[in-house]
Each structure stands twice: as C-alpha cells, then as structure tokens.
C-alpha cells in the first residue's frame, strides 16, 4: 500500500492536457463559480443545485456529505466535467472550461481526473488489469508500456498483485473498490472524485479504502473529493461540506460564515 505514496511523479506516464497549468501548487485544482443545475421533466423545471461557489485545493481531502437527494452527486458530476452546469462557470487550474466541447471535456476527464464509483463499477468483461487500463487508451491507440507498469505497480500497492488477471466478479467488493481506485489513479489525476466509495463495503474494507484515499490526498498536486453519507468517513475529512436541498449549508473552512458552530459540531459527530 505504501508504494502508492512512494511512487515518484516523474515515473508516471501522463498524457498532455488541454489545460497546461493544472496541478500547480497553491492554486485550486478546481473552482466552481456561481454554478447551478436545473433538471426538467418537460413541464416543471427543478433546481437540484442552487448557486454554488467552491474551490477544491490540492493536498486535502474534501468530504461532501448530506442526505439523499441533497445534490451531492450532481455537484460531484459537475466537478468531474461529466455534467454541464445550467449556469455559472467551471475553472480547472485557473482556466475556464465551461464552454469546452464534449470531446475536450472527455479528454480532460481522461487525462486529469480520476473517478471512484459506487460499487467500483468495474467492467465485468475485462480482467482487473484491463479495467485499470481501459480509460488510458479509450480514445484510441495502444496502452504504453510505462502505463502498464504503473497499473501493475498500483495494483501491487493496493494488495491486488495476485488478481491482475482475475475477473471483477472473482474479487470481493473491497478488492473491487481498490481496483477501482487503481483505475482512478493510473493516469496520475490532479483531482480524484469518489462517489460513495464505502457504501457497499464492510467496516474493515471501508477502513482500508479510506486510509488509501487519505494517503492519496496528501499529494500536494492532487485534490480528493469524496461524496458520502457514511459517518465513518467524516473523521478522514480535511474539509467537510454539508449539503441540504441543493445547497452547501456547512463548510468547515468557512463555518462561521455559512452556519452556526452547533451545526458544525453536529455534522462532525454524525
């Protein structure tokens, strides 16, 4: 597991990105500015994300908590450039990417973002190694030998060395989630976005995954955002955001401005 932290950046093959300034120390890896998101069923327009301004800084683990339907996943998918906001602007490494085409956003996701999905979402048709590598060459071309080495190194570090050729269904849910983390890390992302990564895990597997994510967040070039309603996650947060009804109602960084100290205390203890 330590291998993950010891692996020097220079050894990691990292494709060129559209946004060159990504990951510069000190600047937010991601900034949302007055972002909203509406959904319409054809008759009624419903605002699921109210106007939100938010910076994600490198080197810290941001936990986004809140009840179901509070807008956590919507906010996460906007951060991940998977969903476009209805209004507002999204900055990656200081560059406004709001108007980027779908293809450019896809390339950014491939090169600079890592996703850890609920229940891992590994592709059952591929073995574990291919699952880790699938995103790196999904836009065509071949997987570089260096990328393959990196994937094997990650899987070894995550305790999956013996499962490289196994199918996802042969792995426990905890192992699957660790393979999902390897997939998210193989392109050396500047932003790691995790959607309920521990929801399907037992206590021990959840702890292993959270420890891993916590260590990864210590990288001064990388930000980690984790969406959860699992209270086991809260102690790992460097920054805790609480969402309710489409808005961030509590932020440990600005706790005094957005909410009362009692709320903060409640959330921490939840």
């Amino acid at each position, binding site marked *: 597991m330590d291998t993950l932290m010891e692996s020097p950046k220079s050894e990691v093959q990292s494709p060129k990105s559209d946004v060159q300034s990504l990951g510069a120390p000190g600047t937010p890896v991601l900034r949302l500015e007055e972002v909203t998101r509406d959904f319409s069923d054809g008759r009624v327009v419903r605002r699921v994300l109210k106007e939100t301004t938010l910076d994600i800084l490198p080197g810290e683990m941001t936990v986004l908590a809140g009840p179901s339907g509070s807008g956590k*996943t919507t906010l*996460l*998918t906007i951060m*991940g450039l*998977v*969903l476009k906001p209805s209004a507002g602007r999204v900055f990656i490494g200081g560059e406004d990417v709001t108007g980027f085409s*779908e*293809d450019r956003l*896809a*390339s950014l*996701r*491939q*090169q600079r973002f890592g*996703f850890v*999905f*609920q229940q891992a*979402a590994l*592709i*059952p*048709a*591929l073995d574990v190694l*291919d699952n880790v*590598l*699938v*995103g*790196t*060459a*999904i*836009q*065509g*071309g*071949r*997987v570089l030998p260096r990328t393959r080495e990196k994937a094997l190194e990650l899987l070894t570090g995550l305790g999956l060395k013996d499962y490289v050729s196994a199918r996802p269904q042969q792995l426990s849910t905890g192992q699957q989630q660790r393979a999902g983390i390897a*997939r998210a890390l193989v392109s050396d992302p500047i932003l790691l976005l995790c*959607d309920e990564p521990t929801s399907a895990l037992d206590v021990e597997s959840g702890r292993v995954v959270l420890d891993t994510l916590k260590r990864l967040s210590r990288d001064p070039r990388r930000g980690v955002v984790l969406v959860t309603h699992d209270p086991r996650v809260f102690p790992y947060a460097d920054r805790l955001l609480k969402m309710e009804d489409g808005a961030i109602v509590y932020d440990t960084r600005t706790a005094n401005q957005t909410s009362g100290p009692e709320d903060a205390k409640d959330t921490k203890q939840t």
Partner: protein
Amino acid sequence: MRRHSAVRMLLHDRSTTAGAVLGVVAIVFLVGQQLAVMFGLLTLMSALVDNSGADIWILSQNSNNTSTAGDLPSRYVDRLAGLADIEWAQPVIYSAAQLRLRSGKFQSVQIVGVTRPALSGGPWRMAQGGNDVLLEYDGVTVDKLDLVDLGNPQIGQVVEVNGKRIRIAGYTEGSRAFGPAVVFVNSTKAREITGIPADRCTNILVKLKPGVDVRRAQAEIGELLPKTTVLTASELAGNIRVYNLTNTGIGSSFGFSTLIGILVGVVIITLTMYTNVLNRQRDFAVLRALGARQRDVFAIILSQALTIGCIGLLIGFFLLAGFLFGVKGSRLPANLPLWLPPAHALFTFLLCFLGSALALRRALKIEPASAFR
C-alpha cells in the same frame, strides 16, 4: 484498447453474441444459397446458347429469344456463306415434343436438332458415348440427370417421341437446359419428329472468323437478312434469362426468399446487439465518464459489428461451401460466380452495420453522468 474492450465485451456476453453471429450466418447462408441456386438456374437458362460455340444467332423476325421464335428459311444459310467474315453457319431446330415412357405416360422434352456432320450446337459434355452418335439416323443423347424423368432409358433402348422411334445412343453430363429434358438429335430426325420441313429451321448459328468484330458482323447479317432478328450470343443469353425470370415467377420467388433471408438476419443482429447495449449501459456510461467520446463508443459498437460479421461470414461461407459441394452434380443447379463471395461479404458487413444502428443509437445516448446513479 477500444477494439480489445469491444471484443472482450462480446466474449463476455456469449449468448447474445452467439445470437448476433447466428443472424449473420442466416444472412450469409440463406442469401448465398438462394443466390447460388438463382445463378445456377440463370446459367441453365442460357446453357444451350452459351455452349453452342456460335458468336451470332439468327432468329425469326420479331422474336428476341428461343422460346418465342418462329421458323426461318434454311436457305438463309447459303446466303450467309457469301459473307467473308463467317467461318460457318448451321441451322438448328428447337422444338417441344412428348416422349412416351415405358409406363405409357408422356413426358415433355425439348428437341435440339443439330446438323450433321458438324453437329454445331450439340451436346458439350458427354458422360457415355461420343457426340458422334448423333450422326446415326435415330441416335439421340439425353442427360444423366434427366434419366429418372425419362423412365431410366438404357443405352441402345428405343423410345418413342411424338410417335417416332428414336434410340438412346449416349448420355450427356450437365448438357442440360432450363425446363424439360433436352434430347439432342440430328436435324434429319428432328424434322421427322417435329414436322418442321427440310427447307425450314428455327435458328441459324453463325461462327465468325477469329478477330472479326461481332457488332459489325451482326449489322452486316442484319442487312443481308432483313426479315430476321440477329443477336449476338450474349444478347440472346441475356434475353432468355430476362424472359424466364419475368415470365416464370422465378425472379420474384428468389427475390422474395433473398429478402426474407436478409430481413431475418438483420432483425436478429439488431435485437441481439441492442440487447447487448441495454445490458451494458452501465459499462458504456463508465467508459464515457472515464473519457470515452461519442466517436469512441461508435468505434466500439462498429468493432463489435465487424467482429460479429467476420465470425458469421466464416461460419456462413463454410456452410455455403458445404451446400455447394452437396448439390454438385445433382439436379439442383447452383453456381457461385467468383465475384459473388466478396460482394456478398461486403453486403453482409453493410447489413451488420445496419443491424448495429439501433444499438449504436442507444449507446450514443448513454450519458456519462448515469455512471454515478
């Protein structure tokens, strides 16, 4: 990685992949088999013309194929002899007749009377005996494949055609035509059987000297014999095929069967590939979230269609080859022109892509955000 993932997905969903492959096999085999039989029949339709050795055929006025031709004065042959470009000209007699079986029943046959000693337009492949048996007064040849219809006559056996006695003197092998069994006979006996007088014939075959321009010779003969129809062998062969295709219902029958084969195949491919995408929606959403563009999803689906097409083609052509081997030498004519397999393969790939269109449409609609639901 795209192609690798596409193939892995196919291998993982074996049952749906097998269904799609079955669809391709249905297209390749059913359509290929229908086309092979149709081309076999087309070849049979014009076999007498194609194997006559003549470059030009002369028919009665206002007729454009042997089925609708009347008769001609035989003396036209002498007039043709005056043309420098002609190597030979021979009258032939085509006529329907009734052969009496041993059982007393009658069987329709087609009499082809050829002129001695050249016997031009006669049988082109013999199984037993030479075609010189037609030089004999009452000697005829019939094809081995028609023997059952003709009551299995033996060599030397005397049978009755239109009330006239003929003797089976040889068997041909594949010297057949479309329709009733062909009985090759010399023109003298043919006139006796059919009642066509000595100064008349139904067609005149013309062989041109080497290097002579067929079109020019055709025009010259047309000027010399204005009250006739002068056709090149290929024109007449084409006319016969079109006539038979449009007047016998064979064309529409084969067209319909081929269409059904195509429809069945495309429906199977469409449904199975669509089901495959429906079952893999989450996977496609994850791939989109990980950075796959719509064109990458497009490439994956097309790779799958191509893979299914290749496997289906291999199996389908293997079965088709088995069919062709099985019917070789049988009464069922089957002929696959050399250009047909590659054209059929290309057409099958097009149908695979067409069949994958619905799956593609569904896959392209999958939002990357759905990976988070």
